[in-house]
């Protein structure tokens, strides 16, 4: 089902492209040795280069280049063996050099692909146009002084990856799926932590509308949107706004807009005429970046299994549904947790437990995975007890609750509470005999043809054995005895 805006003149298609700025995980900045750690006191992570002192020169950080190559490989993209850093010139108080060092005509990464996981297990490929490396600016703080602004240069010079999608997205849902998938890939790769609330991932949202089949319409670009929800709101608002203008006979102005989180709308920031002329030119302080193919191969060898491959494996090797596999692989830590639970166990049973009781308990307690009171090994132990008939699934739920509270192993709890399943026919037969003796009219009714009563007998037997009797054996023995 395609997403369409219903206008007075018919349906409109929404065309979306995203430019995602992702902060590179690295110890130091793109061109200086200053630390990148979030949360330091203002202006404490600033080198002479970051402050653009006279005579200072940038030196490219190899770790960042490696992260860039890693990301390109993770996006199944073209790695450009030669790329060029250029200067993007503009004046602003939080841009000490008066230019941002970025890549323009020759980025380090070319075209790639991201596979979206859509509702119901559907997938769709979205093109990546390019990815380049650039410096972040500092931060202007406007609320500390009545007439002046403060500048914090801690972020000045931190490496960003700008990942530009092709205009392949068609709905807010797809944009959300794109961002989630991109974030997932970056986290798997360890190249960006994806924390949008700390600003380490933010998106410029390009939106245009057209009648299905028409040429692309004029787009607007909404800058620096910092959550998936806000990106979706931007698209919803912007597309409706554009349809309204077009249906009223107006024209869309190509412009830069800002998202207002307080009411979910966008407003104009500057038009194309007011747009900066950035006067890009190759930074003469830096040589072209030329990669050694052998080094790129080395990096390739360290790329972990990514969500798409993992999902494929979960479906093919573990027999999971596409939907379940998609949920399990979305987050690398959760996927690794599941794999540890499933190791040597029934993978489907493990998936049910991880996605059901375990994620449920985690959500309910508001804990993160690494703070879980039950480890993957312990959960695996519980599943082992179910599989070898030591306990029933019903008892297992009881045991899991105790595990969650005490962090004890499943077999310890089963032992302590005497919850071991009765698989010895003697005690079960004795219990059945007792029940049949005490309820002759029920026995007669069953034998008279009311076979539904078997359920009642099972319940009584389980009750008599404290729920520990093996349900299969109970059924089998009851049928035999009731048959007379």
């Amino acid at each position, binding site marked *: 089902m395609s997403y369409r805006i219903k206008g007075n003149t018919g349906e409109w298609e929404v065309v979306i492209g995203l430019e995602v700025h992702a902060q590179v995980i690295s110890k130091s900045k793109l061109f200086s040795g200053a630390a990148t750690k979030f949360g330091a006191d203002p202006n404490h992570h600033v080198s002479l280069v970051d402050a*653009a002192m006279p005579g200072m020169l940038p030196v490219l950080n190899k770790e960042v280049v490696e992260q860039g190559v890693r990301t390109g490989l993770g996006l199944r993209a073209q790695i450009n063996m030669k790329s060029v850093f250029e200067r993007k010139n503009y004046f602003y108080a939080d841009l000490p050099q*008066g230019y941002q060092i970025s890549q323009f005509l020759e980025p380090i990464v070319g075209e790639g692909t991201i596979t979206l996981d859509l509702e119901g297990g559907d997938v769709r490929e979205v093109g990546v146009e390019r990815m380049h490396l650039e410096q972040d600016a500092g931060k202007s703080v406007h609320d500390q002084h009545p007439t002046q602004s403060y500048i914090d240069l801690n972020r000045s010079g931190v490496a960003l990856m700008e990942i530009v999608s092709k205009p392949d997205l068609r709905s807010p849902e797809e944009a959300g799926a794109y961002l989630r998938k991109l974030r997932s890939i970056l986290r798997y790769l360890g190249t960006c932590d994806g924390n949008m609330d700390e600003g380490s991932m933010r998106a410029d949202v390009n939106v245009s509308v057209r009648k299905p089949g028409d040429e692309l319409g004029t787009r607007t670009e909404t800058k620096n949107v910092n959550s998936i929800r806000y990106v979706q709101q931007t698209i919803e608002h912007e597309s409706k706004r554009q349809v309204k203008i077009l249906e009223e006979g107006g024209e869309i102005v190509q412009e830069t807009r800002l998202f207002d989180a307080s009411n979910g709308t966008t407003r104009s920031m500057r038009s194309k005429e007011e747009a900066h002329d950035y006067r890009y030119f190759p930074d003469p302080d830096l040589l072209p970046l030329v990669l050694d193919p052998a080094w790129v191969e080395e990096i390739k060898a360290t790329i972990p299994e990514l969500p798409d491959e993992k999902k494929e494996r979960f479906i093919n090797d573990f027999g999971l549904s596409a939907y379940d596999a998609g949920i399990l692989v979305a987050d690398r830590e959760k996927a690794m947790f599941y794999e540890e639970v499933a190791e040597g166990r029934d993978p489907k049973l493990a998936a049910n437990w991880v996605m059901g009781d375990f994620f449920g308990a985690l959500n309910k307690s508001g804990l993160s995975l690494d703070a879980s009171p039950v480890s993957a090994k312990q959960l695996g132990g519980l599943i082992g007890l179910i599989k070898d008939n030591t306990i029933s699934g019903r008892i297992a739920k009881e045991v899991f609750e105790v595990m969650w509270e005490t962090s004890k192993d499943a077999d310890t709890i089963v032992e302590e509470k005497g919850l071991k399943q009765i698989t010895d026919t003697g005690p079960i037969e004795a219990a059945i005999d007792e029940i049949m003796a005490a309820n002759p009219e029920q026995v007669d009714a069953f034998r008279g043809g009311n076979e539904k009563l078997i359920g009642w007998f099972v319940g009584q037997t389980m009750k008599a054995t404290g729920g520990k009797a093996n349900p299969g054996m109970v059924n089998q023995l009851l049928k035999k005895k009731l048959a007379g």
Partner: protein
Amino acid sequence: MSNLNNLTISDALDGMEKGDFSARELTEAHISAMEKTRELNAYIVETPEIALEMADASDKKRAAGDAGLMEGIPIAMKDLFCTEGTQTTAASRILDGFVPTYESTVSGNLWNAGAVMLGKSNLDQFAMGSANITSYYGNVINPWQRKDSDAQLTPGGSSGGSAASVAARSAMAATGTDTGGSIRQPAAFSGIVGLKPTYGRCSRWGVIAFASSLDQAGPMTRSVRDAAIMLEAMAGYDAKDSTSVNVAVPCYQKALTGDIRGLKVGIPKEYRMDGTPKEIDEAWEQGIEWLKSAGAEPVEISLPHTKYALPAYYIIAPAECSSNLARYDGVRYGLRVDGESLDDMYERTRGEGFGDEVKRRILIGTYVLSAGYYDAYYNKARRVRTLIANDFKKAYESVDVILTPTAPSPAFGIGEKMDDPIAMYLNDVFTVPASLAGLPGISIPTGLSSEGTPLGLQLLGKAFDEETVLKVAGVVEEAAGFSALPQLMAGGK
């Protein structure tokens, strides 16, 4: 003038080694000369206390048998090199009062080699100029005067203070930087030796940038041997400058064998330009004769794109400078002129902080990089630059070194050419092509003009072949036997 002031670096090193005099005595003689020649305005800041302290340390090091390559040699440091704890201004009001907390790599290398800092020498503002008349701290006066005239002449630029201090014997040597001729042209105007090394030979770290792809530091001295000694102390790979090149630094003095037999010397026909004074051409012919008699073979060569070099240079250098100088915004250091808004503060600070020539180049640079003009100017200039580099590459397939005049005229008067930027830019016509190609070049004083002012010849070499350049320069120096002294020097002539 004490006789200590007239020594070359190599003589002074010998004298100190023999115990004839100390670094302190040598330095005191130069501090005294610095004071006596203040009217030349060669220094923006004099640092006599630092000089004496460094000289004493040098005497101790020498006594301990630990003398460096430049141990105890008092020099002037162009005020474009950031010096830790000493004001560094690029001769611009916008950096007035700026005291770096760091030392440039090249100045640091020199101090490590034992050199002694006398002060920070004057220059054209941000190294933009060919007459040292754009300095916020006033123009520099050439120690040379025309015969029968006391009209003040320019020392050339941008390293005018460095050239004047070396010529006036108020420094034994000085650092310069050369973007389009800023070492070689003032050396020629002031009767000294000036060497611009290959781009990437000396680190640019801590040198206030004018045009990053062209800027290169080098020595300004009174002999070719001194230039060899000083370059060895300055040069070297620096990981902090991505454009510095990791090539071993040789002992350049060893190249000064005097033997140039069989060397092929290129004489580019395009450097014979209409309107060049006859005596410049004659000095050039004389140079060719000297080299021929020393056994070298002059070869006429063609550098066909020469005439495009100056226009290309005056697009590329301003383009880079317009971006390099964006950081001087009044926010973090130097001058700030408060305004109604951020933009107003920028405008007032930069309006009052930069001089006219700097503003002119920022405007030109901004224009040539702007949308719609970029391809016609900046990109075309870059292509021209490649063609010029190829011209040299081709020429060096058949010759070892190239001989040309350094400048199209001897030193001109202060005030001349001031209202015509183009006439001023033409000063660089012989020096700019090698700058665009990143090649090493040296200017050697070869004689006096009819006016009695110095003339210089330029030798250009292959990339990282400063040794051949120095070797041939040594032969020219020997043949020329230039020994004339300027009128305005400590104690008089």
